[in-house]
């Protein structure tokens, strides 16, 4: 789960990390009021609040003649409303938003902070160790994935001890890497340990501060902030769950999430309902090998009642790309008869307007087959993944 920059900064501030003074605004007039309140003379930073990176180098739809991004420095208060108005209710396209872009509904107004140095700090979990791993880079304002790809030597990676503060020698390594002397030791230690506590206490999967500023007094300040949380741990953090911005999420993904399922969309036209990530991947691989592409994949693993399975099937049916549905279930925990009941419930409610091929294997598969056969629905049965996809493609061609 992601949150906005201003929310991430509120959280960091609660953990004692220094962030610039700022306030959120939904209208241009409000932006001006916030600006005057936080810093009477300025300058100010205006930052579009969308959950995607590369905002600075992005541009707004319909404003390609004077391309200006989603992060702007404003020096005169008289320009502030104008600049905010250019962002609000307009669509920002960045390298990470995709071609559709994202609608900006709020801007964050911050007091501009002058700093001596800038660097990148991130925290992730390296699953191969496994350990919380601190990332430090002297390349700022760029996508860390790009740096990792082409300039790997510019990222310092330090696995952290599970139950101890960051070690002295690691702080030294960081200072050496950034070519800073030991006078900066205290500021780094304080900042990075607070970041580590935030990461652990809030079940974060990734925190990125891009960039961190080093102030004249050698204290560190988070000039940007991005936090991604572990969905599975949100039961421990109802306050963070409330920060989720529904407008940022795809409505079908959100709906699937509410049923406890994982759902992803692609650019083809076959809807896949499977139980298990691996099974989804394999189905998509086979579909591709036959010259087609998946429209979406819904993983109903762990779904144990027919109503939830039915909601899953209805969800797939609401995707306009879907012209055929593959239901490939290998039941262990999930019993096939529940899937059959779910298919019946869903088709009775929304009807059957595209071909469905069903392959059920494993726990209670015979019961399931009887349920579906007795319902006399135009469902096609298959024996394995290959067979199922062949039959579905053939049926979709007939429907054309």
């Amino acid at each position, binding site marked *: 789960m992601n949150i906005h920059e201003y929310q991430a900064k509120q959280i960091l501030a609660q953990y004692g990390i220094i962030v610039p003074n700022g306030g959120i605004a939904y209208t241009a007039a409000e932006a001006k009021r916030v600006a005057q309140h936080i810093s009477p003379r300025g300058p100010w930073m205006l930052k579009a609040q969308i959950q995607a990176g590369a905002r600075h180098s992005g541009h707004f739809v319909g404003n390609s003649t004077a391309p200006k991004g989603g992060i702007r420095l404003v020096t005169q208060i008289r320009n502030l409303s104008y600049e905010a108005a250019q962002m609000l209710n307009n669509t920002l396209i960045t390298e990470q938003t995709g071609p559709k872009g994202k609608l900006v509904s709020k801007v964050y107004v911050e007091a501009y902070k002058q700093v001596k140095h800038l660097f990148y700090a991130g925290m992730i979990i390296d*699953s191969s160790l496994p350990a919380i791993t601190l990332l430090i880079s002297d390349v700022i304002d760029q996508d*860390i994935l790009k740096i990792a790809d082409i300039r790997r030597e510019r990222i310092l990676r330090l696995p952290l001890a599970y139950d101890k503060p960051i070690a002295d020698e690691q702080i030294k390594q960081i200072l050496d890497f950034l070519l800073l002397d030991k006078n900066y030791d205290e500021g780094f230690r304080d900042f990075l340990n607070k970041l580590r506590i935030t990461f652990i206490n809030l*079940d974060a999967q990734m925190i990125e501060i891009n960039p961190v500023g080093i102030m004249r007094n050698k204290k560190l300040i988070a000039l940007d902030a991005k936090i991604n949380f572990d969905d599975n741990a949100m039961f421990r953090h109802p306050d963070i769950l409330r920060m989720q911005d529904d407008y940022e999420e795809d409505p079908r993904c959100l709906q699937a999430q509410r049923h406890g399922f994982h759902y992803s969309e692609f650019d083809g036209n076959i809807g896949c309902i*499977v139980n*298990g990530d*691996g*099974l989804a*991947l394999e189905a*998509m691989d086979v579909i591709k090998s036959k010259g087609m592409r998946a429209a979406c994949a819904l993983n109903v693993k762990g779904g144990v009642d027919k109503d939830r399975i039915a909601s899953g099937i209805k969800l797939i049916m609401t995707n306009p790309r879907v012209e055929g549905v593959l239901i490939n279930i290998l039941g262990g925990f999930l019993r096939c008869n529940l899937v059959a009941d779910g298919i019946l419930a869903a088709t009775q409610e929304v009807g059957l307007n595209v071909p469905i091929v069903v392959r059920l294997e494993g726990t209670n598969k015979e019961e399931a087959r009887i349920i579906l056969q007795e319902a006399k629905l135009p469902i096609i049965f298959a024996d394995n993944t290959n067979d199922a996809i062949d039959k579905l493609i053939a049926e979709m061609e007939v429907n054309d």
Partner: protein
Amino acid sequence: MSVLADKHTRVLVQGITGVQASFHVKRSIDNGTNVVAGTSLQRTPNEYLGVPVFGNVAEAVKNMPIDASVMFVPAKAVKYAVREAVESEIKLIVSITQGVPVHDMLEIKAMLKGSKTMMIGPNTPGLITPGEARLGIFPENIHRKGCIGIISRASTLTYEGVLEINEAGLGQSTVVGLGDDMIVGTDYRELMTLFMADDETKAVVMIGKADNVYEQMAAEHYAMMENKKPVVAFVAGESLPFGATMGYAEDIITHGLSTIQDKKKVMAQSGMIVVDRMSQIHEALADLQLK
């Protein structure tokens, strides 16, 4: 022989009275599994599915010898269930639960380190030695006894692997699901060592996924092994747009950009027989002429 569990393995079920546990434990017992006891927080009834029920693992261990535990507990309780089992020095634990927070797994991995306990899972169908021991939720009706081991990181795709082995006219020695999650209790390497030492196992089928670097780690391990048995390996996810799944960002940052083709290449170089489709596994096994 088999690995990890056979008909002599004395199995405890943590959370035995739950709805899902009841369904699957009964099937396991019917399938020959030596289930000897259960635990339940409510502690009632005293007996369930024909075995005694205790309030906690320590109490169960005090009353009878236990070799392994299967956990049917909610995601938020997994770390406490593991701690109980580790403190009672149970050698093998299997966690079925999906949705365990990743930070809990970091805590669990720290608990397991230096302990006497090996953990399979979480988010796994468990492990099965056909006809002898079913520690988990595998659909037992598809399994056949035989000489092929399976190690899989893709829960339900494991069942496809089983069907492929059957199609080759062979059966399974032991099938182990490592778990689908980003961090799992045990990775391929330990299992590979066990299978290579098992008399009954003549070859291993490995089923991997595009994310994380577990397969690369396995390949490195396999390349270094003496006494190798053939490994037929499959990795799901080649059609996935790069970076489309979770976990990728972490992988790229920590280990550099690698595509599924790179992953398969490393595996092939280690001596594994890498197939492109699940449905090619039975042919690859037939080519080994194990019968």
